[in-house]
């Protein structure tokens, strides 16, 4: 059968290394190999497989604490994993190598295709092959209408197609569905845009988290953050200069039924000043509803309790006062925290504490929290005296008490308003009450727009590329016996899983109204058993 026109497919010529390897030829061969469909496929699978370990081995970017635990539990293996970048797969050189190669291959593949497509979409459809009956879809009939009139009628019926009459005027070529290839190119190029967007975001983006107790606030400067991950090219002086105060935090949980205790609403009501000199505004930030301010986004990512504790030392001086953020330990918001009072007299004090929002005494497990809301708040305290280790110069967690050089003094259970006198004249601890706190993540991602646009483009391109059908049809009208005209209509579909018979059918259907078959003949298909698809 007639070979389908192969302009695009020619790019897929099999590659074999040339026998005599001049550097130039070698380079050409390497480039052709890299940009072949087969290589693209293999790189795609490599990419998929390379993504797997990152879902099994803990990742620094996802859960740094797990990575630390891994190092503690199995230092030997951890060191090897670390050498292979297994704790940061998605920013590892080998992962980058795969996707960069893939995208080089993509560019090398798409650019020549785009050039060909540009040319093809401006060229006229190729003239009819000599033997139309060898095409997959083909119909022939005879009519009394003259050849010219047949072609004129066909040309009317082919509105919306790109058509061209042959030089001898006996046939008409038509093509449509260029959008298919356009879609394919748009899809692949959009993937590139997505990649660029991601790269921009990770280079000049910024992400930080900050914990704010109710009633307090923070100014958007680097020093105020508890945790900050700027992109490698981020300039911290570009932080939008807003200030924000947490006025109220509302938390609601399911109070009955099997889901009792499941969170139902977290909402932070804030007052903020977008930039110095601007008026203050109020807003609600909740999960799924971030606040946009000065090119940054403020997300609510966590919350908890901060018991308010006042500590007086042995001299009666107030040495600590205010809310102390505790970290929730379980779904019932039992929270733990520590209070370090280095300048208490006669001795430095350390308090280890557990806050139970709804404290109950479990016969087996002891004091536990029965519900996440603060129904019956209780504070369990253990006091230590001695060297807090805060002078050692080493960074210390504010949530952990280093008791190696301390001695335990006493323990107590407090409810709000209650004071506890420490033994040995060490002072008193008063549990004044509690507040909630919220953690906010502030993120700035200048690449986000590009990523989103790329994603949209990719989706549109993909749909065009999968759903638009590309077809060519030809109509030939030649004088036949007895003054009749022999009309032939044939079609060819291009690309994956395509078929032109529907178009040919439809065209024949419409054409045979203006070019009725001669009473003595009927349209009939000829030629070999077609091999194209059914619709």
């Amino acid at each position, binding site marked *: 059968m007639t070979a389908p026109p192969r302009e695009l497919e020619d790019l897929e010529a099999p590659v074999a290394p040339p026998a005599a390897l001049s550097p130039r030829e070698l380079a050409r061969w390497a480039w052709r190999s890299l940009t072949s469909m087969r290589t693209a496929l293999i790189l795609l699978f490599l990419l998929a497989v390379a993504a797997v370990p990152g879902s099994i081995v803990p990742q620094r970017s996802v859960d740094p604490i797990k990575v630390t635990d891994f190092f503690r539990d199995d230092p030997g293996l951890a060191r090897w994993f670390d050498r292979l970048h297994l704790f940061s797969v998605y920013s590892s050189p080998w992962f980058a190598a795969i996707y960069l190669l893939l995208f080089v291959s993509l560019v090398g593949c798409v650019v020549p295709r785009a050039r060909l497509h540009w040319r093809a979409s401006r060229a006229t459809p190729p003239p009819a092959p000599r033997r139309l009956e060898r095409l997959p879809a083909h119909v022939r009939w005879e009519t009394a209408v003259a050849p010219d009139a047949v072609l004129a009628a066909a040309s009317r019926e082919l509105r919306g197609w790109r058509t061209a009459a042959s030089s001898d005027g006996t046939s008409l070529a038509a093509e449509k569905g260029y959008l298919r290839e356009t879609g394919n190119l748009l899809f692949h190029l959009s993937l590139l845009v997505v990649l660029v967007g991601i790269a921009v975001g990770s280079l000049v983006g910024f992400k930080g988290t900050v914990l704010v107790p109710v009633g307090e606030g923070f100014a958007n400067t680097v020093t105020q953050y508890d945790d900050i991950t700027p992109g490698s090219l981020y300039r911290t002086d570009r932080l939008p200069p807003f200030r924000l105060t947490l006025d109220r935090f509302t938390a609601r949980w399911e109070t009955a039924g099997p889901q009792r205790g499941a969170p139902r609403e977290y909402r932070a009501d804030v007052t903020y000043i977008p930039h110095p000199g601007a008026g203050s505004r109020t807003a609600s930030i909740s999960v799924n509803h971030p606040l946009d301010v000065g090119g940054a986004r403020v997300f609510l990512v966590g919350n908890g309790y901060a018991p308010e504790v006042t500590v007086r030392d042995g001299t009666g001086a107030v040495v600590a006062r205010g809310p102390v953020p505790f970290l929730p330990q379980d779904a019932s918001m039992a929270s733990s925290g520590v209070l370090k009072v280095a300048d208490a007299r006669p001795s430095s004090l350390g308090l280890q504490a557990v806050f139970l929002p709804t404290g109950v005494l479990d016969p087996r497990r002891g004091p536990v929290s029965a519900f996440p809301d603060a129904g019956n708040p209780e504070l369990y305290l253990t006091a230590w005296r001695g060297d807090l280790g805060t002078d050692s110069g080493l960074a210390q967690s504010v949530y952990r008490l280093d008791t190696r050089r301390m001695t335990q003094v006493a323990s107590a259970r407090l409810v709000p308003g209650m004071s506890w006198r420490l033994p040995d004249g060490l002072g008193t601890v008063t549990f004044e009450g509690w507040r909630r706190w919220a953690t906010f993540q502030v993120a700035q991602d200048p690449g986000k727009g590009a990523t989103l646009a790329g994603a949209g483009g990719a989706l549109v391109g993909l749909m065009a590329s999968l759903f638009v059908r590309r077809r060519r049809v030809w109509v030939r009208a030649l004088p036949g016996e007895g003054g009749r005209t022999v009309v032939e209509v044939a079609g060819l579909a291009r690309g994956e899983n395509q078929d032109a018979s529907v178009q040919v059918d439809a065209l024949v259907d419409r054409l045979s109204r203006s070019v009725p078959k001669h009473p003595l003949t009927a349209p009939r*298909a000829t030629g070999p058993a077609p091999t194209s698809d059914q619709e």
Partner: protein
Amino acid sequence: MAVDLSLAQASNNLVYSAMAVYTVALVAFAGEMAFGSRGRVARVQAEQGVPVEERVLVGAGAVSPEPPSAVAAVADEPAAAGGERWGRVGVSLTVLAAVLQLGAVVTRGLAVHRPPWGNMYEFTVAGTLLAVAGFLLVLRRNPVRYLGVFVVAPVLLALGLAVTVLYVDAAALVPALDSYWLVIHVTAVMLGAAIFAVGAAVTVLFLLKDAEERSGRTGVRAVDALLRRLPSAASLDRTAYRLHAFAFPIYTFAVMAGAVWAEYAWGRYWGWDPKETWAFITWVFYAGYLHARATAGWKGRTAAVIALLGFSCFLFNYYGVNFLLPGRHSYAK
């Protein structure tokens, strides 16, 4: 708003009823496979000596402008007795079961005052309904009743897992899931997955049929008889491709919508959480499948295997990741 417990109970009962009817439907479909005469499609092929889709084409080309196409001819043929009837009973029962299941989804939604796909149990019930609906829709215009067993059996299996392992009582959602992006994202995942699932079933049949055609076997074992009833491997391959090509953009959109949701809920659109990672892997495999179909030497069997790998990744992401790999997507519980 409080959960309506009696509606929730009604929903559970409807799920069980649907499962009972599916079971009978499955028996009926299996009955057609076992006792039926050869499928009409296969029979036409045998009579004509050409694969049916080629006949259709010749027909379509030849008889225009008054085209009684071969498709119509095949469909209009008076139904043979016996096995045919089994098959039609199977379809009717499947429709009935799907209606019951739709009732279950609707009552669950009314009970919890939100779209009823907020946890794995609800997702499975709604998603399998989509797969069945997709199958029934395709069946209206294409002779694909042979797929009945291969759609209903996995659906029953998934529903069985849903009511035993995955079941959760009707309840409202945690704040992170309380978003209209949930509706968009999860609906798209469900739709894509349902079509991928049917595509995977057809792909398995393609591999079996292809093996038969290659071996040229004409045995008398039950399997051979069963295989003979299927359309040609080429036609199965094409059907599988169409399903995948239809599902892929939907799944692509689903992943994108998930990223948008993640951005609103967690402050980043992509964080390589295990769930996200496996969605990515699944997507890449299906992209590989579409590529393979356009690559010399990778068409046919190789591409089919890639598609099945893609679906395995999806299943792993759904069942495996939720239970084995901890992550932020607390959807599992």
